[in-house]
């Protein structure tokens, strides 16, 4: 029994490498990879998983180091984090204080419908665009692109100050590399007079057009939660219609920004 334990302990490193390789391979093929990394890195992760599996198998057969308590604790911590992230802590913490970007994975991933050329609301066509792409359009200032009608989706952030102005912030998380370096990008949205702003933290599509924010009304807005944020200070979206939508977790983050149509939405 002691020999068996010693043999297992000596192979702990190799087994941990194999487990990590398996997790990476699963994420990149069947799992909720989007929750951690931009999907464009899937081939890199998959290749790394294969190399790691080879090294892990070798380390299991021919251990390179004696068992180490420090490394063992690191593996245990990593396993716990995987469980936290994959196993439903999101569900336990889903209350009014939750960060909207910490979403529960839905597996298997649902089919994502292709983005149509135009979205229609109240008899008018709108160009589908994401907040990152619209941020670029707004940053370039008044132009033909600035004047066009746009449909943008994202989470709602409300505050008493914004409510008083009949406004809310619409935002999404831009993930270039990984979740940890994500930045929330958003816009102030001005609702039509008399229209009730949507619920805080709800997922909506806003249909409208950009308008320059007067100098005396520009302000820095810090969005709640861990994410760094950029809310356009120069322009806001004047909404014709705001439509509540069912949240599809896979659409929560933005992974792509295009400079022209068709936009990534």
């Amino acid at each position: 029994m002691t020999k068996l334990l010693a043999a297992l302990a000596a192979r702990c490193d190799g087994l941990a490498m194999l487990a990590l390789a398996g997790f990476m391979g699963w994420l990149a093929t069947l799992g909720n990879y989007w929750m951690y990394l931009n999907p464009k890195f899937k081939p890199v992760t998959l290749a790394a998983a294969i190399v790691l599996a080879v090294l892990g198998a070798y380390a299991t057969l021919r251990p390179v180091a004696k068992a180490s308590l420090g490394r063992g604790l690191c593996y245990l911590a990593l396993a716990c984090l995987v469980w936290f992230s994959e196993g439903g802590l999101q569900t336990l913490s889903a209350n009014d204080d939750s960060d909207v970007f910490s979403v529960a994975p839905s597996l298997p991933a649902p089919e994502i419908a292709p983005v149509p050329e135009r979205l229609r609301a109240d008899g008018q066509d709108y160009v589908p665009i994401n907040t990152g792409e619209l941020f670029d359009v707004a940053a370039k200032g008044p132009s033909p692109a600035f004047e066009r009608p746009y449909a943008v989706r994202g989470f709602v952030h409300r505050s008493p100050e914004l409510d008083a102005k009949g406004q809310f912030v619409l935002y999404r998380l831009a993930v270039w590399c990984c979740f940890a370096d994500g930045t929330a990008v958003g816009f102030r949205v001005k609702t039509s007079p008399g229209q009730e702003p949507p619920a805080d933290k709800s997922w909506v599509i806003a249909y409208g057009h950009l308008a320059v924010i007067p100098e005396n009304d520009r302000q820095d807005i810090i969005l709640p939660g861990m994410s760094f944020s950029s809310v356009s200070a120069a322009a806001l979206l004047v909404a014709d219609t705001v439509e509540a939508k069912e949240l599809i977790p896979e659409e929560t983050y933005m992974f792509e920004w295009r400079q022209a149509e068709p936009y990534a939405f």
Partner: protein
Amino acid sequence: MNALHNLDLFAQATLSIVLEAVPFLLLGSVASGLVEAYVPRDRLTRLLPKGRLASTLVGLGIGALTPCCECGVVFLARRLIGKGVPPGAAVAFMLAAPVINPVSLLATLVAFRGDPTMAIWRCALVIVAGLVVGYWAGGRDVLSLLRDPAAAAPACGCGHDHGPEDHAHHHHGPATVPGTPFGSLADAVPLAAVVPSRRDKVGSAMRHAMADFLDMAKVLILGSMVAAAFKAYVPVSVVMALENDLVLAIPGMMALAVVLSLCSQADAFVAASFSTFPAAAKLAFLALGPMLDLKLLLMWRQVFTPRLTRVLTVVPAAVVFIACAAYGILTGGAS
């Protein structure tokens, strides 16, 4: 926000950093293993010049060609000095190699969306610091640099006082870290594996790659957890206070780099996540971290004399602070 919610974010952020960095760490480890197994070190030693400046420059040049992490090179530097490599070359190599090698450069480029500015400045600062410390070390006697020169002579890293021919007596089993909390596993690989026969070269490369990876993976996991905890638990207002003030942001990020002790092939991704900080502060984080951090300090204390340890601590910190402050002033604190 409640505790569960923060734990949730912490877990997701930690995993994302680990998953992002593992391929680069692996690439570095495999490349390091191949270099270790296939590049004869004694030949390099014979080719090195003896002059202070020349040997320091050659050390930097070799560093540029050697994919490795900062943890592995400390014991390698001691080993090289013990073998007769000019100290200036070994010390410059030790400081600069973790940053100016192709893998770290690629990782920095990817993390900053292909913008080479940060990678170029990071290399420049590390080269300057490596040059200064290397030139200084080049003019010193080995006895004034190594804590225990005799231990370096066998160049096996086992810490025992014996020659290479005596290795067989204690290197039969799996290699162990020689009595140090952060000793590189690569340094503990038996000499037969360090200088393998042709038949064993692939196995030797794999063993070194695994040893490097296991060493660095532990540091990466801990560093990612600290970085993620910073993002999940430090109030946004604290971060904002740092990011908006160049005077606070540069030393703050330098301190963070020392505490986080991140791997040089993964730290660029962590730095990039501080997206709203001044570029000068991110540069300070990137330039200092691979040259000075907590685990390196512990390793230096075991390998080098207190005097060299002080120089290794003060000079890179001073170079990075002065250069980044100037860079921050010139760029107006832009992020």
